[in-house]
């Protein structure tokens, strides 16, 4: 529980949740072949809200957030992001992807580019930002994730925690309104988890809308406005972190919590 302690030792961020719905999922269904991964998911995410999604592996939590920026295609229901409906129209997909940043479990930095180039690539080639301006922006975000001194290195020369922070900076360089985190700390050594979580906490405090798939319950308690528990492709329970951890309603949630908090 050392991570818990580190995260909780910092001042608790105030909720920045607003009243505008930025992501609306209406009875979303998805199948992988015969396998029904998402069953009738309904979810509204408000501006500035931080949602932590947890659940056992194979419960569909990663698939859910990957549907939001169309890395996976949903087959039923509606996904509306910032008023744009996600369908096969490439323009809509591009519009949504430019508003939604994503951080992956395995970092997925581009190994042939330096840290700085990783961060400036999308601003230069997607948003046509002049290079000097893109460099400046990238350095600003690298400062925010506390690794400006690594800008000239290649991803392969960095530790896992540093790589993940670069990945966060890379997403932020596109000025997204929403950030998706797909198990951002699961591939990290224990000593590196906290440096990534620190960055995510700061990001949350700055008012970013965040959907985070994670098992870092300390992070959930400290940052989340809402915790969602998924199993078998359904949202089993959702609640504020206080209620969720102290007073879970479903017996499935109780079992899950008792297992992950046992050690």
């Amino acid at each position: 529980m050392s991570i818990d302690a580190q995260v909780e030792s910092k001042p608790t961020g105030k909720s920045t949740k607003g009243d505008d719905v930025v992501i609306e999922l209406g009875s979303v269904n998805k199948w992988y072949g015969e396998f029904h991964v998402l069953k009738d998911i309904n979810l509204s995410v408000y501006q500035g809200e931080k949602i932590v999604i947890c659940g056992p592996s194979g419960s569909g939590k990663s698939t859910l957030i990957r549907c939001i920026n169309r890395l996976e295609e949903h087959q039923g229901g509606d996904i509306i992001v910032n008023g744009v409906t996600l369908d096969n129209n490439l323009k809509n997909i591009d519009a949504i992807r430019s508003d939604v940043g994503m951080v992956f479990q395995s970092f997925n930095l581009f190994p042939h580019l330096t840290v700085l180039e990783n961060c400036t690539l999308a601003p230069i080639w997607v948003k046509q930002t002049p290079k000097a301006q893109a460099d400046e922006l990238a350095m600003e975000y690298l400062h925010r994730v506390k690794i400006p001194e690594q800008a000239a290195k290649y991803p392969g020369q960095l530790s896992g925690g540093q790589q993940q922070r670069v990945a966060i900076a890379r997403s932020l360089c596109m000025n997204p309104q929403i950030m998706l985190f797909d198990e951002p700390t699961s591939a990290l050594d224990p000593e590196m988890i906290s440096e990534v979580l620190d960055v995510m906490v700061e990001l949350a405090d700055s008012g970013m809308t965040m959907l985070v798939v994670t098992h870092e319950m300390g992070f959930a308690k400290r940052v989340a406005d809402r915790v969602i528990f998924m199993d078998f492709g359904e949202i089993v329970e959702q609640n504020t972190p206080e209620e969720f951890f102290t007073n879970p309603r479903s017996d499935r949630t109780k079992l899950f919590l008792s297992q992950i908090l046992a050690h």
Partner: protein
Amino acid sequence: MTHLDASSSDVSFQPKPSLPPPPNTVGAIGWVRKNLFSSPLNAFLTFVSLYVIWVVVSNTFEWAIVNAVWEANSRRECLDKVGLSGACWAGVSHWMKNFIYGRYPDEEIWRVNLGFGILILWMLPFWLPRVTSKITIGASAILIAPFLLGHLFAGGEKGLFLQVMISVAITSFIFSWLHTLLCIATGKPLWTTIVTASGFAAKPDATHKYPVLAVFLAVFIGAFIYQSGWEITAQSTNLWGGLFVTLVISGIGIAVSLPAGIILALGRRSKMPVIRVVCVAFIELFRSVPLITVLFMAVTMVPLFLPAEINPVKIVQAIIAVCIFSSAYMAETVRGGLQAISKGQYEAAQALGLSYWKMMSLIVMPQALKMMIPNIVGSFIGLLKDTTLVSIVGLYDLLLMLKAVSQNPQWNGIHTEPLVFGAALYFVLCFIMSKYSQHLERTLGAGAAGR
């Protein structure tokens, strides 16, 4: 937990110093012991191998150097001097010009030399430091140079299109070298220099292209007037031969097969069924047919289906056949490289909003091509050697030229020396390519250290 607390510990951890390795395991002695005499059997094998090497090397040396005849006017003279115990290199040096240029007329050989000289100069900036826009220079050499070189080699009448393309080629060449020299001397690219010199620097970025276009047009008009005065005689491609033809066919094959292979490989992985089926059919068809068959089809059967007034040139047909064949192989090489790129790279690129072509050209291809360098250069080497097959359809490439010598009455029966020379020439060419690919791997691989 207190006994694990670092601040309250009273034992400080000091790593032990590293010690040198035991003697006899490093240096020359260590290497010999480990690799040559590690056991009695290995020691025995070492001596046997040394003996075999000695026999081969000393006999070759005697034949090729000590007893060799360097000057003679016929094979008879060679045989009279040393019999078969020495090489008759006179047969090679006497025919050297034909080995390189085929039957191209002596007084026109400067055109071939000039053409290859221009090509080498055109590509040279690629290897110079401080030069920017190398991709553009390389692409212009591959796309535009062939018009100029083709005319130099073949000569004859120029249509308007060819005149324009030759002028564009001359202009591009001049621009490339102006740019290169400016980059080396001042560190500023040609574009910026022209914009500054014309006083457009203060004006909006969108207008910067006008002075550059104006200069380009001026040089183009100059080049057009200059080249319209050219009168160079037509040289039938039947006269082309030797290393010249080998380099033309394999050079075009190499230049075409890489981009064509990339497009075919992307097509094969496309989600659009029609494109995918067409690409798969093309690749599988030409990969499952021997090159000889493709060559025969192109040279003997295709003319049967063409109208009588079109009289295709044999070397062009052979080049097309080689290009088609090598593109199909290259496509599979490229596909192998594409498959080595993890799904996460595609997803990260998509999540950042990159379009398909930007994702491919900025993220996927640079990584895939880097990994594929050994295979790509392997294909190039294979292609260079495979061009010997065009001799079967009657093109006098290097191999057929080498063999033709033995049919000359004066040099009747001289097989070994030309073929040894040819083998050495092919070895040098392939070895240079192979070494260069290793060099590329090292320099490009340095970027992704520890990947």
